[in-house]
C-alpha cells in the first residue's frame, strides 16, 4: 500500500461537488479509478474537473469545499 496525492493544475476555488445542490463527486473511503472526477476548480469563471491520475481509495481531502487553491496544491490523498 502506498499513497498518492492529486494536485491542482490551475489556481482557483476548489469544489467537492458539481453544483451547490448536487452530491459530492467522491467521499472519503470511496474507491476511484484513474480518470474519475474527484472535484472541480473554478478559475476565472470557468470550471475544470479534477481527475484522479491514479487508482486507489480516497483517504483524505486536503482542502475544504470552496477553499482557494494555488497551482500544484495538494487536493486529495489516495491510498494506492
Amino acid at each position: 500500500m502506498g499513497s498518492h496525492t492529486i494536485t491542482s493544475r490551475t489556481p482557483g476555488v476548489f469544489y467537492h461537488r458539481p453544483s451547490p445542490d448536487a452530491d459530492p463527486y467522491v467521499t472519503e473511503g470511496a474507491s476511484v479509478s484513474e480518470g474519475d472526477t474527484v472535484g472541480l476548480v473554478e478559475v476565472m469563471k470557468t470550471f475544470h474537473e479534477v481527475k484522479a491520475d491514479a487508482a486507489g481509495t480516497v483517504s483524505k481531502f486536503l482542502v475544504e469545499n470552496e477553499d482557494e487553491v494555488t497551482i500544484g496544491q495538494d487536493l486529495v490523498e489516495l491510498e494506492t
Partner: protein
Amino acid sequence: MSLRSVLVANRGEIALRVVRACRELGIRSVAVYSDADASAAHVRHADDAVHIGKSSASKSYLNADAVLEAARSAGVDAVHPGYGFLSERPSFAAAVEEAGLTFVGPPSSVIATMGDKAAARAVARSADVPVVPGSDEVSSADYAVAAAEEVGYPVLVKASAGGGGRGIRPAASAGELRTVVVEAQREASSAFGSDKVYLERALQGPRHVEVQVLADTHGSVVHCFERECSLQRRRQKILEEAPAPGLSSELRSALCDAAVRLSSQVGYVGAGTVEFLVEGEEFFFIEMNTRIQVEHPVTEWITGLDLVAEQLRIAGGEPLSVAQDDIVRRGASIEFRVNAEDPDQDFLPSPGEVTGLELPGGPGVRVDTALMAGDVVPPFYDSLVAKLAVWAPTREQALARGRRALAEYRVEGLPTTIGLHRRLLDEPAVVDGTYDITTLETWLAGPS
C-alpha cells in the same frame, strides 16, 4: 441634489473607470475589495476603501450583504454597480433603494422586467420594436407546423425551460419539424422536467448591433448611436467598434429610434444598452443590458460624451447634459479586449504575475486597465484585464492605429489575447467590416 459620495461595488478596470469619473466630478469615491485585491489600483486611487471578504467572488463582490454593509459604514449616498457581479440583480438594486441609498442605474423594477426574457419581449412588442419571430408554446406537431408558417423557416425548436444554448434543435421544413418537435418535447421533458417547447426563426449569420441610450429622471431619453459587437466566441465579445460598418443610414435611424422607444416604454433611467440582431435590412430586439457596458469607450470616442459621468449626474437627479441633437458622431473607434487567456490553448484562463508591461500610447489611443507591472492577475474573477480603444477620423485609419497600438502593447508573464487581435486585423472580413456573429468561431476552428 447631486451625489456627494459613491460606493464603487466592483473591481478591476471598471471600478477604476468609475473612481476616475467621481474624482473629475468632485464626488468622494469608496472602493470595496477582497483579500486578493488589497493593493489593487481601484483601491489605491479611490478616496476610501472597505474590505468586504475573502478572495472568491461569492464571498466578496457577489456578497450583497457585505457590499451593503460597506455602503452603510462608509456613509455614501449612492452605489455604482459597474458591470457583471451584482449590477443586474433586481434584489440588490431593491436592497440599495430600501437602505435609502441611490442605485446608479434604473429602478429595480425595470431591471427585473428587462431581465425576464418574456417580459422584455412584451415591452418590445408594446413599443412597436420587432423581436425575433417566434411562436407561443406548441403542444403538437400539427400546431407546430401551423405556427411555423407564421414564424418562417428555418426555425429553432427551443425548450421553454432551457437556457444557455441547451435544448435547441433546428428544423428547415415542415416534414423535418414534425419529427423534431416530438424529439424536442421528449428531450425537454427528461432534461428540464417540462415538455413545453416553442419555435423561433433561425437567423443565418446575423450581426450583433447594440444601441447606447441615456435616460434621466426628467423624462428625457436619447441614443448615442450604435456599436457593432459581432466578433464573439461562445457569446463573449472580443472586439467592438462604432459606428457599425455597412449599416445603411435608414437602418441606423430605425435601430436608434427603436432603442429610444423601448427605453421610454419601460421607464428607463440611466445608461443602458439595447441589443439587436441585424440580418439584411431587418432587425430584432434580443435583450437590454441595464448597466454600463464593457465596450462603452468606443461610444465615448465617437460622441465625445463621458457615459459614466452621465450615469452619476442622472443618479443625482440632474438632467442629461445633452439633447439628442447635440449628440453627433465623429470618426471611427475600435476596442480590443485584452483577456488573460491563451488563444493557442482553447482560451484557457491564464492568471498569474505580470512580470513586464508596456502600454501603447500616442494619438487616438486609450487604455482602460487596472493592471500594473508586478501585479498578480487573480484566478477568482473575469479574465478581462484591459481594454484598448483607438479612434481615428476614418475606419481605415482606426484599423491602422489599432495595428500600431497592438504592436506597441507588451504583456509579459502570462498569455493574453493581444496576439489574437493582431491576427484579426489582417482578416479580410474584419478589414472589410463584413463579419457576422459566426465569423470568429469559424475562423478559430479553421486551418492556419
